[in-house]
């Protein structure tokens, strides 16, 4: 069965949601299951222990970038199916 334009649009939107949330999960929850492992790691960004760096800067920065990336991707999807708002609306 062929999907309508709207269904395809929602399908892709949902796909993007899952990808975005997966990345979000890694940086907000996933890595913090390994607090002590991160602390023991010899990788020290700017000289901070990795665990400390992620919670005061790393994850936060990842969210900022992810949010801009997500907005861009979603705009592309909307454009692809012609659901972009007209400027004069």
């Amino acid at each position, binding site marked *: 069965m062929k999907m309508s334009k709207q269904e395809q649009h929602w399908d892709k939107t949902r796909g993007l949601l899952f990808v975005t949330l997966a990345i979000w999960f890694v940086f907000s929850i996933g890595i913090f299951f390994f607090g002590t492992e991160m602390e023991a790691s010899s990788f020290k960004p700017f000289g901070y222990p990795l665990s400390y760096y992620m919670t005061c800067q790393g994850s936060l920065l990842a969210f900022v970038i992810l*949010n801009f990336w997500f907005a861009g991707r979603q705009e592309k999807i909307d454009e692809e199916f012609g659901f972009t708002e007209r400027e004069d609306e």
Partner: protein
Amino acid sequence: MIKGKFIDNLPKVYGIYTGGFIGFIILMAVAEQAGMSAKAIGIAFVVFTVAIYAVIGWLSRTLQMDAYYVAGRQVPTVFNGMATAADWMSGASFVAMAGGIYFKGYGYMALLVGWTGGYILVSTLLAPYLRKFGCYTVPDFVGTRYGGNAARLSAVLVLTVASFTYVTAQINATGTIASVALDIPFKLAVYVGLASILLCSMLGGMRAVTWTQVAQYIVLIIAYLLPVFWISNKMGAGFFPHLMLGDEVARIAELESQFGFVKNSAADLATVPKGLAGITKAHSSVNGTNWGFISLAICMMAGTASLPHVMMRYFTTPSVKSARRSVAWSLLFIFILYSTAPMLATLSKLSLIDPNLTTGIIGKSITDVQALDWYQNWNQANLMFVSDFNGNGTLELNEFFMGGKAVVLATPEIAGLPYVISGLVAAGGMAAAMSTADGLVLAIANALSHDLYYKIIDPKAEAAKRLIVARVLLVLIGFAGATIAAMGIQGILGSVIWAFDFAMSGLFFPLVLGVWWKRANGPGAVAGMLLGLGSGMAYLIWVRNGGSGFWGITQLTFGIVGALVSLVSMVAVSLATAAPDAKTQAMIDELRIPSGKTILGKQH
């Protein structure tokens, strides 16, 4: 000087404003050198900035419904980002967060992760869709999507409980700052704070709040960053603290292992004034369970996506696309402050505890410390305390106590910065607390006036009457909040965290499933909201009264219980009752695409 429409001239208007504010700081610095007293500088900063907000509030007065409720839906993306950042960063973020990190270290930094990560949920799950919906308030969405007064009323209830808990904390914060800066009693200062808050929002509603919040963001971000950069450079810690404090963090860890965390006896602790704490946890090391960290982050993230005063900021953008972009900008503006808070905590802690630094007090004789000017000032303000528990005449790490607010408010003075910086910080804290309080009071008053009064009680009310009701409610809610704040029941940070848990318990799943699950229906949503809020609250009361709790869920993370109950009951009740009708299904389809008209009309 400025021609054409206000909206087209925003960069220019706020550029001039920022320049003017910096000019004012320089003027005050000169006045300080010329002998202006510290007290006069503090008063000048607070009065000057609040007066500007009040002027903006007055200039933005309106009698139009969509200007009052959603700022006419014409706030440009980046400016809405700034307004949201100010709306979001409260007295807790500005005054209390660095303090929390100072005392509790790594474990508390879960708040940073939670309060930023939540914006991914806002932009992916909710904000663009609610913007497309075209509602005035969050209960407006719930009431229309699920149909019926029961759903609308439940949403109003959850919103009021969460936002009211939050707003008392903000009025408390404005009162604290006003009482320190203006040197008036706290109980009076709370009402001075309230009057300033109402000046901004009463005449112009959302439109006035939007433009004052942008102005407040500019003040608060300058006030937060300037001292941190200054202290970092003055200590020789690094020109750009965010990337250069690795050695300082390591030095704190070294000092911690050298001093050790000595436990004080209960009898000794009883002599410490209420609200003050000592350093008892490691600064940068993992100092709690992984689950403790993660559960707090989860609650703050889900709470972010459920708090109506944030969500309604995205109702004011011109389009769905700009709502989505605006979330990203908000997060960037928030990130600038949040990534600075741990740096401030690090610098503040090191300058106090490192015996090699001239500002360090640990290891010095108690009488010397008690003779310090800044110690006496903050001791009088009830924010600092030392006591020679072991009787050796030397100050040990476990003998020094501070209030959480002192980390932000007192650090510039301790580091030896001129008083003009302390005045600036007071103005910044005031801006942060006021902007959030404004957003919250407006969220509650709008929900009560639009959803309860207009949609349920008197649907025939005329526009003028509705706007009068909205303003009367605004004043009443403000007064109620101030009255409770004056009692000082719960600390600032504690109440804020509760607010997130309440919002998450009652609203997270009903909002998200409203967009993402077509089968969700009215009875399910009502069950989700009421049982979620009820069970979260019951768990909180149980734990507060000595209950043992389960799954390591504390009084700070009870939202997990509430949200789970909410999800299960919402799904179960939805499936047990009839599916939403065809009209609702079509509405959800329409909601999911950005193009086309909003679902609710421009005036409704």
